[in-house]
């Protein structure tokens, strides 16, 4: 395995574009090192991007949105007061990734690029409408987070492409988001299902709504009809019922050691209700 530690993204892209064999970018390493230790995969080329300027920064942008460096860890994000005020759901999702120790290393961008359907941060990021900037041999582009994973362990990133930053949109008035997952223990488990909801309200009425579910399909995907079910409602029982039905209908899970199709589908409905209620309360409080 060749280890590289470039100091610019241009250099990183050049190394990756020219590399022969399996290439991985190293940020927190909490997935790659597990794969190496378990004998699942040892990359031939490993590119450590933590030496690149700005990758450790959390910056509020001019429009009020956030630019999060690709090497920013979960712990750094959860300790950042302002971003947690804007996007509590995203931050609580990031904070659920692994143990305290894992939080000290793991990054949300790594969580995204590992492309696990059960990644905790991703449903919250999708609900929030987050994007990443991607740099490659062909230039730079902005991509919605939901377009990065294409299947378990697979991404839409092309050879030589690297994510250079994570961007959260400006929160604005009356916005609230939330994320919860179901796990058998209280910590240290992979989500059996995860649910992220982001809402905006005007008074008591929902004006915008996005929801995404994790661990119920090959990739984390937005539940497209969430807005139709919620916008214009005050999250009455009928709205919650409609949302739960939508969530269950969006499920295309598998039976595996962590849960059955039936169990996951059931939980999707339970968590759609629970998480929407929290997001609604937060949105109302943020007016």
């Amino acid at each position, binding site marked *: *395995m*060749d*280890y590289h*530690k470039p100091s610019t993204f241009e250099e990183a892209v050049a190394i990756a574009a020219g590399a022969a064999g399996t290439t991985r970018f*190293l940020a*927190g*390493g*909490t997935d790659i*090192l*597990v794969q*190496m*230790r*378990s004998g699942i995969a*040892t990359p031939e080329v*490993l590119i*450590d991007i*933590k030496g690149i300027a700005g990758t450790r920064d959390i910056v509020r942008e001019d429009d009020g949105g956030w630019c999060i460096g690709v090497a920013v*860890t979960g*712990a750094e994000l959860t300790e950042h007061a302002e971003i947690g005020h804007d996007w509590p759901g995203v931050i609580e999702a990031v904070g659920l990734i*692994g*143990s*305290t*120790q*894992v939080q*000290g*290393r793991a990054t949300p961008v790594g969580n995204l690029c590992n492309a696990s359907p059960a990644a905790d941060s991703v449903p919250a990021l999708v609900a929030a409408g987050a994007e990443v900037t991607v740099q490659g041999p062909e230039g730079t582009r902005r991509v919605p987070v939901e377009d990065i994973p294409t299947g378990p362990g697979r991404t839409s990133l092309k050879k030589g492409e690297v994510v250079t930053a994570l961007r959260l949109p400006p929160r604005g008035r009356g916005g609230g988001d939330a994320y919860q997952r179901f796990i058998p223990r*209280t*910590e*240290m488990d992979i989500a059996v299902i995860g649910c992220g909801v982001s809402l905006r309200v005007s008074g008591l009425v929902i004006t915008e709504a996005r929801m995404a579910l994790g661990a119920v399909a090959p990739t984390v995907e937005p539940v497209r009809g969430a807005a139709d079910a919620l916008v214009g409602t005050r999250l009455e029982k009928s709205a919650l019922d409609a949302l739960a039905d939508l969530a269950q209908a969006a499920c295309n899970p598998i039976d595996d050691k962590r849960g059955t199709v039936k169990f996951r589908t059931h939980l999707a409905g339970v968590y759609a209700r629970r998480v929407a209620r929290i997001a609604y309360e937060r949105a109302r409080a943020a007016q």
Partner: protein
Amino acid sequence: MTKIHVTARINGDEVEFLCDPRETMLDVLRDRLGLIGAKEGCGTGDCGACSITLDGRLVCSCLMLGVEAEGREIGTVEGIAEGENLHPLQRKFIEHAALQCGFCTPGILVAAKNLLERNPDPSEEEVRYWLAGNLCRCTGYDKIIRAVLDAAAEMREAS
């Protein structure tokens, strides 16, 4: 395979080592530097027995490559006591019998010390969640939690 030269500061001392880029920090600590306090319980970040601090941040040394230590400050269980004086956490772990086999103990001490540096007055629930990544199979955690809370109280009184 080419080895890489790394310079780091460990428990306050500057150390240099050569390592294969595939080697984890845990491998380096144990096999190259003779610091056997950090243990490998799983190698995959699930048990916390290899806990160290990296620039003051709690991490699993099994989830970090040795080469990533370049220029960084690392703390291990060997650096917790000051000379012959045990840290209050170490004393309270002995006093409360917060260890049975003692294998998870170094990792738990490193993690608990890091907690108390950030939060000198944690609740029981905060201690339990902070330490959720440190598996102990012997104690049922009861005496560990009590020892951490007691050490925190003593440290608050002393400061």
